């Protein structure tokens, strides 16, 4: 599952995911363009329209029964109600492998107790 959210809401999203018992997230900073109003900035007389805005992209691999909970958590954490809150894409996952153990699929996305 891929979620694109506002950077300022990223912490709220992580909190919501944690509460939904979803562990295991990759985050990256991306720049994107959706439907939101563009910012106008001026640097020494050079006025520019910032066509892209900063977003945070979360990649989360979950088993089927966790899909709804994860979508719910993403929406709850990321929503402000203004244009530009982001998107969630749920995509099928062909295979998942945990590098350390070689576990595949369900075993690879289920957190293990540390220690």
């Amino acid at each position: 599952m891929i979620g694109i959210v506002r950077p300022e809401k990223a912490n709220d999203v992580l909190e919501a995911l944690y509460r939904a018992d979803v562990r295991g997230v990759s985050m990256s900073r991306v720049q994107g363009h959706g439907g939101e109003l563009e910012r106008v900035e001026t640097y020494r007389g050079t006025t520019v329209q910032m066509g892209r805005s900063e977003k945070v992209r979360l990649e989360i691999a979950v088993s089927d029964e966790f899909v709804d909970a994860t979508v719910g958590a993403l929406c709850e954490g990321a929503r402000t109600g203004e244009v530009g809150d982001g998107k969630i894409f749920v995509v099928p996952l062909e295979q998942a492998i945990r590098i350390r153990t070689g576990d595949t699929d369900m075993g690879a996305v289920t957190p293990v107790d540390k220690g």
Partner: protein
Amino acid sequence: MSAQIDTGDTAWMLVATALVLMMTPALGLFYAGLVRSKNTLNTFMMCVAAIAVATVTWAAVGYSLAFDGDGSIVGGFGNAFLNGVDFLPREGTRIPELVFMAFQATFCIITVALVSGAVVERMRFGAFLVFAALWSVLVYAVLAHWAFGGGWLQAGGTLDFAGGVPVEMGSGFSALAAALVVGARKDYGRQALLPHNAVYVLLGAGLLWFGWFGFNGGGGFSTGSSSVLAFTNTLLCPACTLVVWFTLDLIRGRKVTAIGAATAIVVGCVAITPAGGFISPGWAMALGALAALPSYAIIVWRTRTRVDETLDVLAAHGMAGFFGILFIGFFAEFAWNGVSDGLFYGNAAQLGDQALAALAGPAYAFTVTFVLLKLIGLVMPLRASENQEALGMDVVQHGEEAYVTGEGAILITPESGIEAELPVADIA
């Protein structure tokens, strides 16, 4: 001889004035490193704004209220708009009053900038400009008059070499009031709000220390013994604070931290500010070591409270200034300063004078700042909306970003036909 200009004194004071002015952008760098990246420019700009606003108010009325005449509470309007401030020596010094005025102006500027540390990341820039203008006159100029301009504290015998009362306690306790009135940042205590660039913080602290040689070394308005003493103490005292701070960091967290070190430099410089020209080098080193303790304790305690005095102006400036002012009462030494002894050398009365200043200065600064901000808050909003705070004050208040990439930026020219849409600040 009293009405003569000394070229050596004047030359040093010209340099010292420039050194102290540099401290304000240095503080901007220090503060900017301590906030999140989306607020870098706004935080720095508050310091730049202090230069703009406080210089104008100082020239208009601030200097006059602080240094015209020896009224007990405030000075007069005789030097308003720099009337009569010229090449003749300032009374009690051998430097032209113009230089004296400029030197004192740089003190007013940095004090205003210091207070901004309490309200960064959420106070509206416009409201800060209004606050800075009024605060520089109503709080700074009055406290400067008390301590330097012949007001009741100075007349009563309080010793304050380079601004423990107006600059350090004035900013520190005003910062506490400002933090209480403006309120905490929306995510304070809920999310980790971390410094975004520790290198800025260290570089800013280093430049502050460099400038502080002008601040304390110029506090005697001469190249005489007291200035030499204060100058050297400005090296010794913060170094001792650093050593103790390292130790405290080691005990608490098993690691010596960089931002802790930068804080220690400031605390040490602050502590020696009031005492610089009054205590021996040995006691200056002791002062540096001891002053670390209360400031460290306040920083540890403050972050556990709901008071979002964001950049710990109270701990670094208020507390260390308070400590330095009291320290004079114990360890001032006539043999070194030619003015007065402290309790330790048989003059208990000096401690009383110092304690009076240590109570009156903070009380005045806190009360007036609190009321002033409440009044400004009736006329205009003090803080940005939650939405704006989330976006970051840089883009909202200034329409710029500190770390802009330029990727995907479309140039707006009259020919391009792209209508400049409303900046984010107007829609959020």
